[in-house]
């Protein structure tokens, strides 16, 4: 990660026309994406993760519109682009998106190889022969065994995890600067999910792109995120480095998300679940949007919208608890000493032990 910003979002609001009413999906979001970082956006279903990132590639549905604010990318004001033609040089080429369901992004009647080669020809202006070589190399890089032999196969002949790799290969074929992964692994089983996450990390080292990783599962991002932005009801309510969000979360909603991790539940007990439901996005929100579900809510939370308070140079949270006048409230016991507790679990499972043993063995081999 470098300190240079590659994409800057300022006071962005996005609405949708729905049967004569206005749904406010994004409210006043500001965000700086740093060159070559991995930013995770987490939050429950409907919090606006997809809508926010769709505005970066002009992919909002017909009924959606930016009602306020700006998006700047590399000297260009993206929020001013209107026509599909204006987006041509950006979408897919500079900023590419990988969606959850790989089947919807692949053409079932074209071979896997030709679908990658096509993109290479179009975006890199290569000849057919060169494109095929590049495509096979990409398939190889994304971990498809016998890439050359499987070049002429069709999507149905690939497993779900392999199809997702191909979608990544296609996205990378244009050498994008920003790769948006919208829940790319939710539908996959753990083994494949872990492999895809590793793959994205590795490719990022070689291709130097910036990644935005969207998920509702905080557990998934611990290994890959440099920074995490937490969304609730169309707002970013907390943002910080991965360590700050896991070890020093400040917003009660972030506390709830962490508390829902099944790894923290006591066997035979209950899993923590956030009470209530998110507010209607049709109405104006008074005060802190999370207040009605927040066990730590104060009177002011129902009356006035909190500002973004700064916790550290990299850590911000939008909660009145950070106001100097607020009483001191500790995060719930369930999420205190997270690190120490996971170390204990792993020790009990002999996993720390087994891994160090393995590492020692490797070192030995190296000598």
């Amino acid at each position, binding site marked *: 990660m470098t300190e240079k910003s590659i994409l800057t979002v300022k006071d962005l609001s996005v609405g949708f026309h729905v049967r004569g009413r206005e749904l406010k999906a994004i409210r006043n979001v500001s965000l700086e994406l740093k060159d070559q970082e991995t930013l995770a956006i987490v939050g429950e279903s409907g919090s606006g993760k997809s809508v926010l990132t769709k505005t970066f590639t002009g992919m909002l549905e017909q009924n959606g519109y930016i009602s306020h604010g700006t998006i700047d990318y590399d000297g260009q004001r993206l929020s001013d682009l209107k026509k599909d033609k204006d987006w041509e040089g950006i979408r897919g080429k500079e900023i590419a998106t990988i969606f959850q369901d790989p089947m919807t992004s692949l053409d079932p009647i074209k071979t896997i190889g030709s679908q990658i080669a096509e993109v290479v020809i179009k975006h890199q202006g290569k000849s057919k022969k060169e494109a095929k070589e590049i495509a096979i190399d990409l398939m190889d890089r994304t971990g498809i065994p016998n890439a050359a032999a499987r070049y002429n196969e069709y999507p149905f002949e690939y497993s779900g995890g392999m199809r997702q790799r191909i979608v990544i290969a296609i996205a990378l074929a244009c050498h994008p600067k920003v790769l948006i992964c919208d829940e790319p692994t939710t539908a996959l089983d*753990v083994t494949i999910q*872990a492999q895809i996450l590793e793959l994205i990390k590795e490719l990022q080292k070689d291709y130097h792109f910036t990644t935005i990783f969207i998920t509702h599962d905080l557990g998934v991002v611990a290994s890959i995120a440099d920074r995490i932005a937490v969304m609730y009801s169309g707002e970013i309510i907390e943002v910080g480095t991965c360590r700050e969000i896991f070890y020093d979360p400040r917003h009660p909603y972030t506390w709830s998300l962490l508390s829902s991790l*099944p790894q923290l539940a006591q066997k035979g007990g209950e899993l*923590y679940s956030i009470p209530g439901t998110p507010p209607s996005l049709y109405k104006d929100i008074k005060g802190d949007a999370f207040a009605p579900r927040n066990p730590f809510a104060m009177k002011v939370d129902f009356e006035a919208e909190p500002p973004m308070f700064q916790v550290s140079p990299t850590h911000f949270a939008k909660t009145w608890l950070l106001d100097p006048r607020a009483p001191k409230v500790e995060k719930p016991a369930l999420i205190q000493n997270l690190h120490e507790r996971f170390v204990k679990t792993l020790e009990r499972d002999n996993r720390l032990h087994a891994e160090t043993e393995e590492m020692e063995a490797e070192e030995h081999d190296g000598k």
Partner: protein
Amino acid sequence: MTVNKKDVLLSLHDLEISFGEGKQKFVAVQDVNFDIYRGETFSLVGESGSGKTTIGRAILGINPTSHGEIDFNGHQINKKLSHQEEQEVTRKIQMIFQDPSASLNERATIDYIISEGLYNFHLYDSEEDRLQKVTKIIEEVGLLPEHLYRYPHEFSGGQRQRIGIARALIMQPDLVVADEPISALDVSIRAQVLNLLKKFQRESNLTYLFIAHDLSVVRFISDRIAVIHAGRILELADTEELFTNPLHPYTQSLLSAVPIPDPELAREKKLVVYDTNMHDYSVDKPKFVEVKPGHFVYCNAPEEAHYRKILEEQGQLTK
């Protein structure tokens, strides 16, 4: 958990399930042997395509079996049954499906969807009795009686999954096959649904066959776990035993992939890759062996000796 180990509810013997015939024949599942005890949660984990749903569907009688036996309450059920037996089994074994949107009839009201089983089996005395049963269950799953006259599309994913649960539980089943009931759900709704399943289990001594790929959830909810790979059960043990002493390399690989929600530990984590070529089964043939009471592994004689040695060392360590 009050699981009486002697009380076997469901038993699978040498089960094989295949699709197609002759040259086209594809064996999806083979040599499956396990018992599920009354009142427990038994989980089946394994990668996509390993045969989990196929086993679940065979238990429900949707997939025909090509070999072996399925016994439920001591009676074989994968054979031609009398009308009465069939009714009994259909009622006592219920399924909750992975995709809450695809599994509900969009054109029926919630009232009808939940009552369908009651209608099919005439499990009510009067219209009043039926309505009372439906109202009771809908409240138990955390919905309101006024929801009964609405249609599935008016509900969120979590609510739909609750409707699916209500529809299964109103039949007062003995066994519920829950095929990835939470994979499609958001973390907080996931917790609500799991808590609900647990609550019903406590109250009615329900037995679950739970199919899932999220091992952190599986650890929380299961009493015992079977690991399946390419249609074969490779390891079976009590939950904590499996997590602390995984023996089969595939199980180790699966556990190494479970996300650790801690930035420091997650970065140190190493994926263990499983390669079927690591087994040499050319001379010594593998079988499903109980290497420790209740802990089974699919292995051949040299592997068995190796596993026993590991367990012995572990035992000494923890003593």
